[in-house]
């Protein structure tokens, strides 16, 4: 088998080497574009002490909400996380640490992590709680906060299509945090709706080049639950 064939055939194989106390990034915005099957597999495996980096924390009983059920997350890094009763309970009881990060800063910290940039300045959060304890600096008359980058042991992302070499394309706003996370995982696992042969994806429109992706798995039966089903009056 070619060294570039990254397709694995089971969720067990997709998460081989995933251990307690690891740092893991999970793509998605709300429930849109989340790697449902990989999240379920981590739930099944029951690993504890995880640092989870994800914009949101799922809802009760779905997405990362499942990890909360089993108290798998010890630290959650996200921008908007409280749409979930259990989350609130774990936060207030101190069972889980939560590091709230502005959404754009979170996205940029992850991109920086993947791109070998250890830290950058941003105006976001200057003068707020977010800047507490961080270095700040005035550059050309404006105040900025120094933000370190983020990387992870595993990045679990959801893509629309992959080729067997791990080149990925995303669909519409299901892209969100997935491309940056794909670059920032030591092991990046992509759960996708369709796997095609190399050459079938147009090289001019690859969102995530395969160099960032270590494993590809075809997901079963994505539920794609909608949080705010809103239609035209």
């Amino acid at each position, binding site marked *: 088998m070619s060294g570039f064939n990254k397709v694995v055939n089971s969720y067990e194989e997709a998460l081989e080497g995933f251990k307690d106390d690891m740092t893991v990034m999970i793509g998605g*915005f*709300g*429930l*849109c*574009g989340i790697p449902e099957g990989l999240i379920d597999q981590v739930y099944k495996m029951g690993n504890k002490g995880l640092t989870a980096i994800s*914009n949101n924390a799922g809802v009760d009983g779905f997405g990362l909400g499942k990890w909360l059920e089993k108290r798998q997350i010890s630290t959650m890094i*996200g*921008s*908007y*996380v*409280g*749409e979930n009763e259990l989350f*609130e309970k774990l*936060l*207030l009881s101190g069972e889980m640490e939560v590091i*709230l990060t*502005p*959404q*754009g*800063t*979170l*996205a*940029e910290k*992850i*991109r920086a992590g993947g791109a070998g940039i250890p830290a950058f300045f*941003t*105006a*976001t*959060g*200057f*003068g*707020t*709680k*977010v800047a507490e304890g961080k270095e700040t600096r005035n550059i050309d008359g404006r*105040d900025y906060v120094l933000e370190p980058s983020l990387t992870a042991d595993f990045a679990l992302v959801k893509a*629309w299509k992959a080729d067997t070499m791990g080149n990925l394309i*995303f*669909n*519409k*706003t*299901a*892209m*969100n*945090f*997935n*491309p*940056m996370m794909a670059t920032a995982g030591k092991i990046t696992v992509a759960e996708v709706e369709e796997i095609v042969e190399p050459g079938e994806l147009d090289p001019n429109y690859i*969102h995530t080049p395969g160099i960032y992706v270590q494993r590809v798995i075809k997901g079963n039966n994505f539920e*794609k*639950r*909608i*949080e*705010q*089903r*809103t*239609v*035209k*009056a």
Partner: protein
Amino acid sequence: MALSREQIAMRVAQELEDGFYVNLGIGIPTLVANYVPKGVEVMMQSENGLLGMGEFPTEETIDPDLINAGKQTVTAATGAAFFSSAESFAMIRGGHVDLTVLGAFEVDQQGNIASWMIPGKLVKGMGGAMDLVAGAENIIVTMTHANKHGQSKILKECTLPLTGAQCIKRVITELALMEIKDGAFHLIERAPGVSVEEIQEKTDGDLVVPDNVPEMNV
């Protein structure tokens, strides 16, 4: 008469210019999209990765992979583009969005804004609000002038944790349109039939009142 939520949105919409890229927050700001003036075209930016947000879908066209930052199902307008969250906030942080409209719990006369956290209650997180207020040159805050207990939210100094420092220049409430500069609120317009005295009474921050305060045209 104090403005309705819709009227606040209507007044904000008068600030839209043809060719503006606009980010609208949740709540009253969302309503602004319903009052875009005739002859004006704007493109809505949604920070989850969409430039050119269209109207809500029908039951037939609903797509779980196409949502806005409020997690509502939407459509893409003609000429839209999808991109990552990093690209989306590059636009926002880089100052490429022409107008940002968002709500707030409090603003103060230094231009500080508090909109994301009420200590003691559950903290959901700031989402993209801190990036939006840090990135935009042109921000309009829509909010009520006072809380339900009648306490002013237009303050000398914010009491809640800030979303951004010294970044807000315009506020539209149910009573007034104010600009913030030189450490004070400046009354620019009042809601039809609302007296300057009422606005002054409900404003905790320093309010500079010119001789003539025109009524809003809503």
